[in-house]
């Protein structure tokens, strides 16, 4: 009896005391961490975007002046235009190419595993290294393209010194590096689709082309949307490649928002203005992502 009494004295009933606090105690580190690395920096960035800076110091609160200034700044408008066209063009190419490769590699044939492995290599190379390699390809004095052209009797190939070509060269670099990501996501998506509806479609009379249009693409839509949103967000932040390849030139042909914002913040020490630029850019990306998610929802059956 005394044993039972001792036992019951030690027994704590569920849902009392520490039990109530435990979930919050366990959550606390994660919440604090999230606050430290996410909430605070964003809040600080927004605060900075409403300040005027001189010589590296905040000198006064200016409200939304930095934001209104953006829309009359030709350099910002140019960078915005360059960025949007870069993202649109690069992501479009990457998606189409990645989809084509994924459709091809979703089939089982000899060597397909090796091919899949090779196809994702560009993605795992450090972006700066990719940019350096592309600079070695594009350079008009001793670049690979020039060497090939000259060995065929042509003249030097000038890419980075020509606005349109430099821009397309940058797009090509991005396509080379990030098509594998789209490929990987879409391949996984295709491989997770059920097999039978496709067999049913073939029996029902659909040609391969119609199977692709009527079934593969519609069934792949959610995955496709995720891949596009992911790449779009990522492409907006492209920086290293431009930094190495062209520094935004020639002129401002490849000056992305990221480069302009970086220069504004660090080279020109216009911290508040740069913060406003990046906050605006963040809002644009957010809006684009939300729009994409909404479109995606509309496309998926309930």
């Amino acid at each position, binding site marked *: 009896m005394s044993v039972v009494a001792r036992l019951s004295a030690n027994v704590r009933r569920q849902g009392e005391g520490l039990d109530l606090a435990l979930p919050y105690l366990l959550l606390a580190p994660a919440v604090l961490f999230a606050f430290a690395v996410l909430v605070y920096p964003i809040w600080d960035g927004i605060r900075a975007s409403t300040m005027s800076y001189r010589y590296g110091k905040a000198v006064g609160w200016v409200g939304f002046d930095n934001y209104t200034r953006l829309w009359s700044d030709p350099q910002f408008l140019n960078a915005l235009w360059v960025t949007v066209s870069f993202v649109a063009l690069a992501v479009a190419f990457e998606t189409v190419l990645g989809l084509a490769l994924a459709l091809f590699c979703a089939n089982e044939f000899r060597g397909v595993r090796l091919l899949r492995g090779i196809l994702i290599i560009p993605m795992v190379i450090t972006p700066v290294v990719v940019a350096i390699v592309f600079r070695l390809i594009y350079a008009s004095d001793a670049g690979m393209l020039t060497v090939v052209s000259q060995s065929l009797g042509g003249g030097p190939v000038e890419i980075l010194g020509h606005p349109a070509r430099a821009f397309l060269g940058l797009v090509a670099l991005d396509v080379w590096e990030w098509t594998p990501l789209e490929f990987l996501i879409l391949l996984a998506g295709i491989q997770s689709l*059920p097999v*039978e*509806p496709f*067999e*049913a*479609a*073939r*029996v*029902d*009379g*659909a*040609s391969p082309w*119609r199977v692709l249009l*009527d*079934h593969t693409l*519609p*069934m792949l*839509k959610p995955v496709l949307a995720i891949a596009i949103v992911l790449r779009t967000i990522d492409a907006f932040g492209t920086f290293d490649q431009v930094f190495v390849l062209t520094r935004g030139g020639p002129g401002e042909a490849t000056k992305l928002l990221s480069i302009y914002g970086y220069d504004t913040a660090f080279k020109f020490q216009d911290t508040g203005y740069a913060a406003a630029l990046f906050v605006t850019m963040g809002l644009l990306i957010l809006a684009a992502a939300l729009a994409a998610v909404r479109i995606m929802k509309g496309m998926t*059956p*309930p």
Partner: protein
Amino acid sequence: MSAVTFSGVEKSFGSVAALRSLDLAVPDHAFLALLGPSGCGKTTALRILAGLELPTAGKVSIGDRDVTRLQPRDRDIAMVFQSYALYPHMTVYDNIRYPLRIRNMSESECRKKVTDVAATLEIGHLLDRFPRQLSGGQRQRIALARAIVRDPAAFLMDEPLSNLDARLRMTMRGEIKRLCHSLGTTTLYVTHDQAEALTMADLVAVMRDGVLQQVAPPAEIYDQPANRFVATFVGVPPMNVLPVEFGRDGIQVAGGVLGLSDDRRTACLKAGVSDVGIRPEDVELVAPNQPNALNGEVYVVEPMGNETLVDVRVSTGRLVVRTRRGFTAAIGSAAGVAFDTHNACFFDAQGLTRVHRAPSKGGE
């Protein structure tokens, strides 16, 4: 509507042979069930007919067209899949309409056909839904509707009822039979469920390990099984098979002696028979130690409501006896078993049926 013919069709996946020289002719308008345990090659045969697999050797014809190398879309067939294979991103209406749309049928014509089919299958109220909003039975009907909406040369059904619960399966069984009967289209129906095969089909083709065992109408499959495999695969509970020896007065089975007519006895001896097969409903329970009966021990008694199954252990094996409702016996009690050898069939050492059940003296 056309006959379907497999001539010497073989299929192997790597070193595994799924089909060994299949010869099978399905007459026009017939409903043929391909029956067999899983892995017997029945689904492979169907997929070869659909064009989803190419045979390693042999020829497949629909009507007088050789379709062996044609694309599925050029074969003029419709197929119902085990998983229904509905298009998840399309409404029910678009699912059913799809085979018509792909053939560039006008929208008004499509609408009429789809509505007609939907009425036949009583799914008119589901047309605006998506497959994921439907129950299994409803999806099954959509899949059927999509197959019958156009007028193909043949229907192919791959275990279409196996994902349904038992009650629904029985209902659909009857419906599909009626539907196919009224359409009159040649149908190949793959199933591992002998009840489906026997109840629905005009012809049953039993397969095992990639080899066709027997093609015959259901009654013949049941009464005149071509071999021991067919005999024991078809029928619930399966046919009892026991080793048999021939004595001067008749046959000896598990220590008991049973009479046998002279002509059947001669035929058996000539064929080198080694086993006797008897269906549970042809066996009766008698008191122990009777002449012309076998002695055994009641192993288990299974009341089924309308009847009772009694499992009796005899010296060389077991016998299941189908007997009247309400029968009781203590487990372990002694029992006698007897049957009329006219109702038995006899197998040789290879399992082939050498002497069939005598046709004149059937059942009870």
